[in-house]
């Protein structure tokens, strides 16, 4: 018997497409309709990559033992870190915050190595934005800066941006102008009306030049950051003449030279464009619930990432309490939830992780499980368990359960709840 689940939310990227149709036969996903290639691989291949066995120091162990051990590690540490969170549900993130407060931990999410500069820039100047449906209905000029939706957010064009038909854009792509700004040609850039190839690391300079042109200043150069000034003038004309423009930006802008200054400049440029027409700016968030991670942390602690609870109340210091810095400098234990820092962090941070007790909670073993003293497999959110996640524009969706997980495997939320119970016993 094939069961069909309609309007399932895909928990891979920040697009959080919610029109996926999943066919299940004998508790196995056999077909994913409407999925992009990445989503299809996620749904159909979710059972691959190893058995979900609880491990302590590489040896098979029971869940109870692992939970107890995890609690001991956190309670005995001077400076524990809780990190990850972007690929789990808000419900689990809320529990993680509670746990961090209980054990006086640092807590950080993966945005500290992706869109944290966006958050910093927002703290400086704000952030004029909207939901993706507004873009669908209204935008007639779309600028993609430092991002490659074709490969990273494959259905962005068809669902939200350049190719979708909306209220004021009933002819779809024909009603819109699309511009790409990037350091190289990608599979996305050929799809624009205009592509500006910019020299790496010079986004800030280009943005400043655009702001100057917008204010009617004359530039003394013919070429800025590898781009002809006449092309920049063309963009300014397009912006001013648009009814409604939007800038989508990715890690090309947040993680290149200048970081938060790039974003601050981009947001300021957007603000100034509002003296002429409607113009907004939206980050292309990567992990499916990294937006939720920032959001939940903010309503519980006041800050979106890099939070420390060692004094019993939340403090914020990016560069000090952010995971890479804390791991490389002074942390003495780590709980990693739904993430793989060993695969992605700089050498010094990873090296110190090898020397400290590490607990990993993740549906799949990964590079971090190699160094983890305790590995607790969990249910995959959006496939084996439900939970809330926020799309890149902040729209909250409720993800579904379509198959049963293996016996005895709990969700991140339940595992964290159990760890907290053990922590309470130890602290009593």
């Amino acid at each position: 018997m094939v069961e069909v689940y309609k309007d399932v939310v895909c928990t891979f990227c920040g697009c959080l497409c919610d029109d996926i149709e999943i066919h299940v036969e004998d508790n196995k996903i056999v077909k994913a309709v409407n999925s992009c290639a990445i989503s299809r691989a996620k749904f159909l291949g979710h059972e691959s990559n190893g058995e979900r066995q609880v491990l302590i120091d590489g040896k098979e162990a029971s869940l109870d033992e692992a939970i107890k051990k995890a609690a001991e590690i956190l309670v005995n540490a001077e400076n524990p870190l809780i990190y990850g969170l972007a690929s789990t549900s808000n419900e689990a993130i809320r529990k993680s915050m509670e746990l961090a407060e209980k054990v006086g931990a640092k807590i950080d999410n993966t945005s500290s190595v992706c869109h944290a500069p966006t958050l910093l820039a927002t703290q400086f100047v704000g952030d004029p934005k909207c939901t993706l449906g507004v873009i669908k209905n209204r935008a007639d000029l779309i600028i993609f800066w430092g991002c490659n939706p074709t490969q990273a957010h494959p259905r962005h064009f068809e669902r939200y941006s350049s190719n979708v038909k909306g209220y004021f854009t009933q002819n779809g792509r024909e009603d819109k102008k699309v511009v790409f700004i990037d350091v190289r040609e990608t599979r996305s850039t050929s799809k624009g009306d205009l592509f500006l190839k910019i020299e790496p690391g010079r986004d800030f300079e280009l943005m400043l030049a655009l702001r100057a042109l917008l204010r009617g200043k004359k530039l003394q150069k013919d070429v800025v950051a590898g781009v002809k000034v006449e092309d920049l003038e063309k963009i300014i004309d397009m912006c001013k003449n648009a009814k409604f423009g939007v800038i989508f930006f990715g890690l090309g802008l947040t993680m290149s030279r200048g970081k938060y200054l790039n974003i601050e400049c981009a947001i300021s440029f957007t603000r100034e464009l509002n003296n002429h027409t409607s113009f907004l700016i939206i980050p292309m968030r990567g992990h499916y619930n990294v937006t939720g991670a920032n959001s939940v942390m903010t309503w519980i602690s006041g800050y979106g990432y890099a939070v420390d609870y060692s004094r019993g109340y939340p403090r914020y210091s990016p560069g000090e309490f952010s995971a890479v810095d804390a791991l490389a400098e002074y942390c003495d234990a780590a709980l990693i939830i739904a993430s793989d820092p060993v695969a992605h962090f700089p050498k010094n941070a990873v090296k110190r992780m090898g020397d400290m007790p590490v607990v990993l909670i993740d549906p799949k073993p990964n590079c971090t499980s190699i160094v983890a003293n305790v590995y607790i497999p969990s249910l995959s959110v959006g496939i084996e368990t439900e939970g809330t996640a926020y799309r890149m524009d902040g729209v909250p969706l409720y993800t579904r359960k379509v198959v049963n997980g293996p016996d005895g495997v709990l969700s991140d939320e339940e595992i964290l709840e159990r760890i907290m119970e053990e922590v309470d016993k130890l602290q009593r």
Partner: protein
Amino acid sequence: MMAESMIIKGGIVYDPLNGVKGEKTDIMIKDGVIVSEVPSDAKEVDASGKIVAPGGVEMHAHVAGPKVNAGRTLLPGDFRRYYVPKTDSLRALVGYAVPTNYTTGVKYTELGFTTVFEPAMAPLDARHTFEELEDMPNADKAVFPVFGNNWFVFDCVKDNDIEKLKAFIAWMMTETKGYGIKIVNPCGAYMWAHHHSNVTSVDDVVPEYDVTPRQVLRGLAQANEELGLPHTIHVHANMLGRVGNVSTTLDTLKCVEDIKPHPSREQVIHLTHLQFNCFGEDENHRICSGAEDLAEYINSHPQVSADLGQVIVDVPTCTMTSDGPAEFFIHKALGPKAKWINGDVEAECGGGIVPITYRSNNPFNAIQWAIGIETCLLVKDPWRVVITTDHPNGGPAWYYPRVISWLMSKKARDKMIETVHKSVQDKTSLVNLEREYTWEEILICTRAGPAKLLGLKSKGHLGEGAHADVAIYPIDPEKVDMANQPEEIEKKLWADMVIKDGKFLVKNGKTITTERGRTYLINQYYKDEEHKRMLKDLKEHFQKWYSITFNNYRIQDVFAPRPQTVSINPIS
């Protein structure tokens, strides 16, 4: 929740709804409600020399949802202004103007408030709003989804199809667990998101839909009264923050003058944060107070209620509304250093956030400060005017004791007038007002009144069967002359004891524990045939203009883990 029987003895009880005006009497509680008899072993609580009042009812405070959270993001320093480390029984408290939800819940309880309504939810963001509300402990809560710029509402209003509109409202309340209809700058947020402009009067036309704010207000008011939702339409009028806007505000109220109220009440419209919509215009086109005009209208029109949106000066705070163009205007007015967030939501509404500090030495801000209290003093019927600061828009709710001191004491007002810009003396009538609010009136404006306006039968009073939500303040009204000792009011309007559903939450002025509050919500579709007819169009509407599917719109029951369903009473 285990609740013990108790008897609150010797207090000076104020229960305006039941005509109790500062009498020494006992209040008895059993199983979480007020009763007339308790077992002989009921716990005795000594309240002698103290005011005993129903728990406060906050009808308009922005406490949860994406825009509140965006406000937190814009104010990282706010979390260094107030912080208390976790204890064995409480989690950490942080934040001041836009605190964490946990802190908000605890502070409201300590103020003696046990019900808090979030007055502006973008329906599409309902899940986020309810997640935050779940993290706000103690208070019973509800939300008002916004309707005034919704495309489907425009469609219904354009066709003058009130039956379809009623079906849509009931559907929206049910799907998003809403309680009442909020209207924010009707048509204006649409014009901002799609035409980079605003509406300037109730008769401006939305080009694509050929509807006006007047039609939207009238349509929603009529549908609301015919549907019998517990509260009237809750309106943030057009032209907020603009000099001379009191004329637009009066036009807004006049729009619905002939709409017949539901048999359960006299009102058809609630004008929210009136201060921001009560600016007059002097001969030099500068701001002056419009309080006299507005108060006169309210006094002669029983179908209108309002809340203050009182401004608190010299305290950093944050404006946050679903009024996109107003926030753009505020950020331009504050200059290039102002932070600005815009937040349009597809096919439904808009929004914006701008941090602000109202300055006492700024003539505009000083007049704003005066308008709130001035109107409150000029409106004769305390049952129709509610004390709010539109938290955090006018200022944090933690300033309610100070606002109350201004209302109860001319001495406190005069002292304040001396410290603010002198424009207050020329451009408002505040200096000439002699009225001083009584305790009874204050307790109407903060609990009995709002509870009645919100249609909450078990709140705002201490009659038999009411929820046992009791706030006890360390003031003996017979001993302290409020008018002459306003500083006492300010100090002692933080509750000494707070009981909610018969359980102690605050003792000796300190929170001892936290509980999960109820969520009031509507869970009832309109007539089957109208519901089905509406749904057919609505599904197509979703398919075309939304970026999520129809089936993923309805929020799950887990988002309101302690629901309290309120029925609607349609008139046929």
